[in-house]
């Protein structure tokens, strides 16, 4: 199995995640789609690490995981704060800064 297969799969997953971010209205689902995109990037990193026969790609994937965890924590806390103020998890309802 050549790494190109894994890279192609990661591209497909990344695009699906991007569509989800664009289409879905529920902010939690948008977050999940962002996680999907990060996971797709990790798959590409691991595939390239294997192709280049070194471990740097895996280290970067590890860092991506750490940053994703931090991002989820802060993002979900922001979501909770918005939900408390607006009683909704829809991205359309947080529009106070519009205009």
């Amino acid at each position, binding site marked *: *199995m*050549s790494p*190109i*297969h*894994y*890279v192609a799969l990661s*591209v*497909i*997953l*990344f*695009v*699906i995640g*991007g*569509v*989800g971010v*664009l*289409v*879905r*209205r*529920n902010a*939690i*689902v948008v*977050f*999940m789609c962002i*996680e*999907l995109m990060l*996971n797709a990037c*990790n*798959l590409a990193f*691991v*595939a390239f*690490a*294997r*192709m280049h*026969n*070194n*471990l*740097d790609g*895996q*280290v970067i*994937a*590890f*860092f991506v*995981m*750490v*940053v*994703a*965890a*931090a991002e*989820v*924590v*802060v993002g*979900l*806390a*922001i979501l*909770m704060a918005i*939900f*408390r103020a607006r009683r909704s*998890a829809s991205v*359309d309802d947080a529009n106070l800064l519009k205009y």
Partner: protein
Amino acid sequence: MSHILAAAGHGGTNTDFIAEETIYWILAVASVGAALAMILVRRAVHCALMLAVVMLSLATMYAMQGAPFLAFVQIIVYTGAVLMLFLFVLMLIGISSSDSIVETIKGQRMAAGLAAIGLLVILFLGIGHAAIGGAPASTAANGTGNLSGLATLIFTTYVFPFEVTGALLITAALGAMVLAHRERTSPKPTQRDLAARRLASGHLAPDPSPGVYALHDAADRPALLPDGSTSALSVSPTLSPRDPSEEPSFVRPEDAVPVTAASDEPSDELSDEPTDERQAISGRADS
């Protein structure tokens, strides 16, 4: 799976060709299908489950590609911690909040689809132009083992990013605490206030508990009042209460047979039970 992990354990890329190809195609179809389902299903909880499928498939792929450490980190951190956090917040801010179908921006889905196709084409052209060779037979960097190789890299070349990561995690934890903190604007009600409120409401006793019957004791069974009617207070408002009179085999108190009479024909009771269970299940699926 154990075969893959065992092979990945001593640092090579792993399985023989046929096995890897088979597992790759199974996992690829599963993960793409789950990812598509994730953006198509309405309810956020189903999205989380689909995301779990994608993450577990990716973890197996990491293990297949000589990254057993990342495979386990993926399972522990993503499927364990991050998804649990997602589900936790989902339960907190309303499990029933499903997406609205209404397009708020006109033609947004069409535009998103076009953008996705464009991105897909651009990325695949990029990959096609890149020189991606075949994988070497075994990962030489894994010579002393994947784990010690990664540790050497993290604590030598990448030690500064690693430290910054620690600062980032502390900042994230503090930020979550600050954002989730709610300032109390009114004093906390004391026991005296609560007792006064309860007396003023005129409803001293706690709400009745749901009904417990011979065949059913689910939480969505309303309790029967002495006159045979059901009590709406006994079922949590988030559940849809089930009307016991709708179920033919349900034994109402007024036509309940005495124990001695019931023991005369036990075969009837036994034959009744499965159909009743089936009805209960189909009723649950309907609601």
